């Protein structure tokens, strides 16, 4: 029998290598955060770019998710004669799960891809190399501000998403289907706990923001400097971000409940 141990399949090996490289990249970014504070204007610019510029899609989607949720839950609750609980169920769903998760998925699609494409093109056109040649650390100037922007923007966007979602459910439940306005709000405020529901949701969105921004920056930074390489990198950003967000949501929910 051969003493040589079989090599693991390359897909698993490559995936583990990617995870390892991404972890090391995170450490590099965290180490560069103090230096990146010198470029605070760049961080603010990135918060504007990833956060404020994502507001339209976040608000629109939040409104419609809330409206659909209101409609579906009103129908289900009416079977049991419990339509008064509509505000409670909608708000708990939004604060705990839908707000952070759907915002993260939208954020990956809108801001994550643009971060990856931008950094990938900077790599392809030697802008990253030019910064290194000008003795400017690209991790501190390019990667860290975008990572910080993701961490800052995501919880804010999730809050906006939640607000619009609840407004959408109110629009359908109260204005359209005739549920009592006072019942909707009073049941909601009496059953939603700020720390257990709202703050835990915010923590989730902070974690999702960090994960999506890290994946987006890492994919852009390590992309092959070609058009095809940038295209693949943006696709990987959406795919990996979606999988990791949903998996991390399960883990965090299990720990936070």
């Amino acid at each position: 029998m051969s003493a040589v141990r079989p090599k693991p399949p390359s897909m698993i090996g490559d995936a583990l290598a990617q995870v390892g490289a991404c972890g090391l990249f995170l450490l590099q970014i965290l180490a560069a955060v103090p230096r990146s504070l010198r470029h605070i204007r760049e961080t603010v610019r990135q918060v504007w770019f990833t956060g404020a510029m994502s507001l339209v899609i976040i608000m629109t989607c939040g409104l419609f998710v809330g409206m659909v949720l209101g409609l579906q839950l009103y129908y289900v609750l009416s079977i049991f004669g419990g339509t008064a609980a509509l505000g409670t169920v909608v708000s708990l769903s939004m604060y705990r799960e839908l707000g952070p998760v759907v915002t993260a998925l939208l954020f990956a699609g809108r801001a994550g891809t643009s971060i990856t494409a931008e950094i990938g093109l900077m790599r392809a056109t030697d802008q990253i190399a030019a910064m290194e040649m000008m003795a400017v650390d690209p991790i501190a100037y390019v990667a860290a501000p975008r990572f910080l922007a993701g961490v800052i923007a995501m919880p804010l966007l999730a809050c906006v998403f939640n607000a619009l979602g609840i407004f959408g459910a109110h629009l359908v439940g109260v204005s359209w289907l005739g549920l009592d306005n006072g019942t909707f709000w009073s049941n909601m405020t009496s059953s939603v706990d700020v720390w257990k529901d709202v703050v835990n949701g915010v923590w989730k969105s902070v974690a999702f923001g960090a994960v999506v921004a890290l994946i987006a920056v890492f994919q852009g930074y390590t992309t092959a400097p070609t058009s095809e390489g940038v295209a693949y990198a943006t696709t990987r950003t959406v795919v990996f971000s979606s999988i990791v967000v949903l998996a991390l949501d399960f883990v965090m929910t299990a720990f936070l409940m």
Partner: protein
Amino acid sequence: MAAAPPLRLRWRFVQPDRIDVSDDRAQARTPHAADALIEVRGLRTVLGGKVIFDGLELDIPRGRITAVMGPSGTGKTTLLRHITGQLRPDAGSIRIDGADVTALPRHALFALREKIGYLFQNSALLTDFSVFENVAFPLRQHLDLPEELVRNLVLTKLQAVGLRGAAELMPSELSGGMARRVALARAIVRDPTLILYDEPFVGLDPIALNQVLKLIRTLNDTLGITSILVAHEFAAVARVADLVYLIAGGKVVARGTPAELTRGDSAWTRQFFGGEADGPVPFQYPARDYAADLGFPAGAASSTPHTEPRP
């Protein structure tokens, strides 16, 4: 981690000189005895299984303009990347003023790069910034200068490359030649001690070419800047370079002043400067039999065009 040896890059002021360098002046400038700012020893690099350098040895004299020439794909840009520490070789050493670049830690490498200007082959301008901000970028990142001084420095450099009027344009609004001149202004904005030009003449019209040549020569003469020039245009190189290295097959195959190389009778110089297809450097990239590729019996066709008259 061992501390990096102190860098001793220094300024040298010499008298301004004319751009036209005659053979006599070129001889006088021949830097055989000059001290070397950069020493490359036993450089070996293998990229993608291909040997790029195989024991390359050369010296870049201080305060002179040295041109590195050679066939496409011979590793000229790779050599510049080695010198600036962007790429580590498989073996050998590169010493800049005594400091081995291949062994420098990152912070020492960045300290070294603050004294180096680098003109990229594709300009590498930051596309989010205007021309002005691109040139101001190194100043803003490393120096805490008053805005008025930054403005004056940037406009002075832009004036030198003839693009002061384009200061507010974005890189996407520039032609290739203009982008190269902006990149040149950015490379020299901090008056570096060493400048590396990677294909600086590509895309320049004759007027801009003449001005850029004049600028390269003036920078060298007035500030004593050491320059390394990678280019294919021998006529332009001959006007400014004090020393030319011809690299092929991973080694230096010829070295001398432009005049010496023009007169050189080695097979390398004859082929390269004569632009001949036949010689030690194959014009054709290694390939299978030409006739077989075209579907004829193997060996039925030559890989080079047939020029003999038909009977």
